[in-house]
């Protein structure tokens, strides 16, 4: 592609503006996390008066960050693993079989994306409480309740992306396995899943991000015992006397795992979006 001087200049200008918009808040988070408390109590300065890593140590004592962290980690990992497993089976069914109700199922799953969360939050709460009353399974305020809720949230997107992946894989491979005596599910595990691993990883990170960052349902369905990072940090941030340097340090601690995983898998996420319905 030819690139004239003017197009080069506009590219540099465009990239500079976009980069500034992205970097400004990121810089604020990072720089504030290594400032002493006195610095963040006064007017914002671009450079700390001196660099300190104490906020990263102290935040664990200021709020029960470890407790929130373990809760979020357990809930998000479980929701991700289950969501990916459920989505793999469903996507396999949709991409490889023609059956009655296939269209209805796909449409309904996608349509759930449209539901305002606020509409089913309250009934879900009531249903959870009633399930506990009648059959004794505790869902409100338990890990299980949030795990099944979050796994359902990422399900539509996961199924949608995996169907795209599976449809891009030629059937000859599975058919050969079937001739060799594999069951359809055996072919799924031996052929399709290994080939689609990058796509599955991309789907998994999406599911994890969904669970890790969710606020609305966690605000109603958790108790002190099961409180997640989202609610714990929000509650702390809304207090009147906030140690902002420590809160920013906590923000980095809780973001780093997801951001790094997302960036490591970005190539597969882009190609996953391409394989999924995007090309339609």
């Amino acid at each position, binding site marked *: 592609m030819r690139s004239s001087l003017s197009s080069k200049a506009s590219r540099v200008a465009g990239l500079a503006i976009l980069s500034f918009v992205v970097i400004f808040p990121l810089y*604020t988070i990072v720089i504030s996390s290594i400032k002493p408390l006195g610095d963040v109590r006064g007017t914002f300065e671009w450079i700390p008066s001196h660099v300190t890593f104490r906020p990263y140590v102290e935040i664990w004592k200021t709020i029960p960050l470890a407790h929130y962290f373990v809760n979020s980690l357990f809930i998000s990992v479980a929701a991700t693993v289950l969501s990916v497993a459920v989505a793999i089976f469903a996507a396999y069914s949709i991409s490889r079989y023609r059956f009655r109700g296939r269209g209805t199922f796909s449409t309904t799953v996608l349509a759930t994306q449209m539901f305002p969360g606020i509409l089913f939050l309250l009934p879900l709460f009531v249903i959870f409480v009633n399930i506990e009353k009648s059959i004794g399974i505790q869902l409100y305020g338990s890990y299980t309740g949030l795990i099944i809720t979050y796994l359902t949230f990422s399900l539509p997107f996961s199924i949608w992306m995996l169907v795209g992946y599976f449809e891009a894989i030629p059937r000859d491979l599975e058919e050969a396995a079937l001739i060799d005596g594999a069951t359809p599910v055996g072919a799924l595990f031996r052929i399709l899943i290994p080939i689609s691993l990058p796509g599955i990883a991309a789907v998994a990170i999406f599911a994890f991000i969904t669970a890790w960052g969710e606020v609305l349902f966690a605000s109603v369905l958790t108790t002190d015992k099961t409180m997640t990072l989202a609610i714990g940090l929000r509650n702390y941030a*809304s207090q009147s006397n906030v140690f902002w340097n420590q809160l920013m340090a906590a923000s980095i601690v809780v973001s780093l795992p997801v951001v790094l995983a997302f960036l490591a898998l970005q190539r597969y996420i882009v190609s996953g979006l391409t394989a999924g319905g995007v090309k339609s």
Partner: protein
Amino acid sequence: MSVAEKNAVAPALEGVRRRRSSRWMGRRRLPYLLILPAVLFELLIHVIPLLAGIGISFLGLSQFFIRNWTAAPVVGLDNYKVALDFGSPIGHGLLHSFAITAGFTALVIGVSWAGGLAAALLVNSEFRGRNWFRTLFLIPYALPVYVAVIAWSFMFDRDNGAINRLLVDDLHVVSHRPFWLLGTNAFWSIVMTTVWRLWPFAFLMTLAGLQNIPKEVYEAADLDGAGRMRQLRYITLPMLAPVTGVLIIVMFLWTFNEFNTPYVLFGKAPPSSADLLSLHIYVNSFIDLNFGLGSAMSVLLLIFLMLSTLIYLRVFKVGGGSRA
């Protein structure tokens, strides 16, 4: 495998399949078994609560029946009448919140789409370091929502925030120190915060779409002497249309239902200019403990979203001919 081989193999394969499956589990049942877990979870978390929510919208489920749901009286369409009586404070509040949300959604989608398209075009051309920019632009999307919003609320602080430091103290574009989270400024703050979080998604989708446009198309256009703007107008945008169609409707649904950003930014008492619908309904249901009315408002929101989506899909023929 060649076509001939395939044809030779096919009957044998069919036989194998039939034998296997009858032994294993009815072949006709297998696809249903595979989707069963997904169906059960969708029923429990989405479908049944949705139906229950519609049911609750016909009940006078207020704070007086909070401990005994079943005793709540059936009030028919009363909740809907209250919600839609725009002369009363409640109806007026809902209408105002709807208008705010509509403006918010239009702005967020427009800016996110334009930013995403610009970034995707810039990053899609060949130059050194393009992968670094791609990575950088994706960070806001990978960040947990509450982290991004908490950081912005820190930056919006009037006296000690980074925004006023930049605009007032360093660039002198604003003379007095504005309160960013009060009055009408709150609206712009929430738009800014949401766009910052959302535009990388538009970037990601558009980039994926751009990479599907064959290079030969541009080479042919180059030979014909079409300039960059004409290529954008007559090749890139039309070929991106399917992606853009999906992108816009997804962003529309997300943004119109946006709860996290106003909730983390303002808590349970948002300023009037940033009173988005989801939070408005949340406050009506969980703070004022009027669940029947809150459910009726949610159902109205759902009806609006469904109608808009149907009209959109009909008018722009998005997803036509794709699987589903």
